[in-house]
């Protein structure tokens, strides 16, 4: 078995074209998927892939546990819904407004909380997000318990009618891929390495003259912005902004997605979000209590495989390969 894996690993290193084939297959799958799977489910998965990946930037790479990310996702969702429905703005402008709102909110949350470490940061973000939740309950424009319903989807670039679910899927796909590319570039830039340095040894990063709070703040704002993009896309596709999008349960769920896939790895949150959203979709019709199942998975994940699906497999693979060398 280990010989086989070792051989495979060597093969993929020697023959780079295998990666191109893999990428081609992935792209083809993503493009053809709506013909096989319910498109709204795919859109939901894509939005959470972006949301979890955005959270991973702060949780996995900067080492900041935010328990309030639903505020950015849901806050952007409300703003986008309001812009599209009440102000009648086009699709692009509504999504942009929602995303900008999330960025601004991220800056505010970040400025308030970033100097506190670990658990305090988690509690502060949770409390701030809950404040937003209460505001969403009370403010007139959010529609309280009803939320903002039948948000118009509008046209993409004034040309493509997003009322067509397939068109909606491709637009969301494009936007999510764009968001992931931004994250990829960020992580593989000097900035990404600085974040890693801060996570690994913060006092040392300080002693090197890095303004740690400043870098964390930038990462946090970027993470909030992309979470907002995910929320804006979702609200347009599902045509509904509701309190669920700003609740602490959602903040927890997205942490779970990142954790279960593998914190601090690029593929982790993508796998985790796909897994959790698909699971919830299947549970929704089974009559089993979703919150209970999610909670139990959460506990199992923390107790048994903290590195997540992806992180754990990579770690096992490495061990196998090293044994092969001896």
């Amino acid at each position, binding site marked *: 078995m280990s010989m086989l894996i070792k051989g495979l690993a060597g093969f993929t290193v020697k023959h780079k074209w295998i990666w191109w084939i893999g990428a081609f297959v992935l792209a083809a799958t993503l493009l053809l998927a709506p013909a096989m799977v319910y498109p709204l489910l795919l859109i939901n998965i894509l939005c959470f892939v972006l949301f979890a990946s955005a959270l991973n930037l702060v949780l996995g790479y900067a080492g900041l*546990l935010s*328990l309030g990310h639903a505020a950015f996702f849901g806050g952007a969702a409300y703003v986008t819904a309001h812009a599209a429905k009440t102000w009648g703005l086009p699709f692009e402008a509504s999504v942009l407004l929602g995303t900008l709102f999330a960025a601004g909110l991220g800056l505010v949350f970040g400025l*308030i*909380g970033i*100097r*506190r*470490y*670990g*658990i*305090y940061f*988690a*509690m*502060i973000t*949770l*409390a*701030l997000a*809950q*404040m937003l939740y*209460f*505001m969403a*309950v*009370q403010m007139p424009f959010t529609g309280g318990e009803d939320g903002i319903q039948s948000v118009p989807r509008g046209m993409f670039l004034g040309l493509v009618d997003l009322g067509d679910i397939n068109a909606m899927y491709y637009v969301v796909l494009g936007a999510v891929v764009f968001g992931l590319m931004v994250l990829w570039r960020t992580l593989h830039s000097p900035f990404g390495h600085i974040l890693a340095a801060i996570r690994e040894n913060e006092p040392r990063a300080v002693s090197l003259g890095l303004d740690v709070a400043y870098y964390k703040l930038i990462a946090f704002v970027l993470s909030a912005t992309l979470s907002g993009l995910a929320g804006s896309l979702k609200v347009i596709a599902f045509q509904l902004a509701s309190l669920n999008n700003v609740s*602490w*349960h959602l903040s*927890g769920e997205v*942490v*779970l997605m990142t*954790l279960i896939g593998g914190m601090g790895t690029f593929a982790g949150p993508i796998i985790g979000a796909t897994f959790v959203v698909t699971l919830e979709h299947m549970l929704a019709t089974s009559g089993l*209590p*979703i*919150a*209970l*199942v*999610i*909670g*139990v*998975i*959460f*506990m199992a*994940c*923390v*107790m048994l495989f*903290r590195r997540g699906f992806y992180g754990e497999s990579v770690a096992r693979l490495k061990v196998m390969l090293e044994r092969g060398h001896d």
Partner: protein
Amino acid sequence: MPDIFGVPAAVLLGQVLLGLINGSFYAMLSLGLAIIFGMLNVINFAHGAFYMLGAFVTWLCLTQLGLNYWAALVVVPIVVGVFGAVVERLFLRRLYRIDHLYSLLFTFGLALAMEGLFRYLFGAAGKPYPVPETLTGVFRLGFMVLPVYRAWVILASVLVCLLVWLVMEKTRLGAWLRAATENPSLVTAFGINVPLMLTLTYGFCVGLAGFAGVLAAPIYQVSPAMGSSLIVIVFAVVVIGGLGSIGGAILTGLSLGVIEGLTKVFYPSASAIVIFVVMVLVLILRPAGLFGREN
């Protein structure tokens, strides 16, 4: 009856009193959180869920077993506390040596699972629980009418908080506990069973949350969401007070309840968020919290 700042004194005092009741719950829960954090270095997100569990067990005791309020007041904290001790022994103990975030995430999952389970079993709607007969009726104080049960809640919780504070600060047991917080290996070397002490501490604080749940059952509706909506506010209270001091947790809890009550009089629409606003102000002006020590 004179007006105070343009508000009838009766209304004002009534809200202050309501605030004190909420504050009693904040105080009891944040006290437990502070002790658990001090001893185990765990942020117990499930604290609200244990409070909810306490209220539900109380309700179940009455409806299924016919146990009345006073019996529940004794039995329920023990049941909840034992459950908590089991959780500590089986799961949390294994997480002490790694990053604190994991124990927070574990208790987060536990809270989610417990809330989900109770919603599944009993539905989301609140269950009414009757006020015990001996505590029905009201005190007529002249300026306002005070239900006896509410007075009892304030009295009971303040007494319990004071008792815990006295035990922690003035007794030998408290000294051991505080010593174990500072330097567990040294305390172990003196022949004290620190792991057992940690289990008992967790069980006790969780039992305290269960006790708060019993007190809450006749006032608030017994519902699966009652824990999570409270714990988030209690977290804000803990951030404001700082996790360093037990007395601080009690004082902050009570005073924030009062502030919330006053906000209901003067600016009702902000009453749901006033605690969070206070938290933001404290974080800007005194980041370690009012009674906290930085790291």
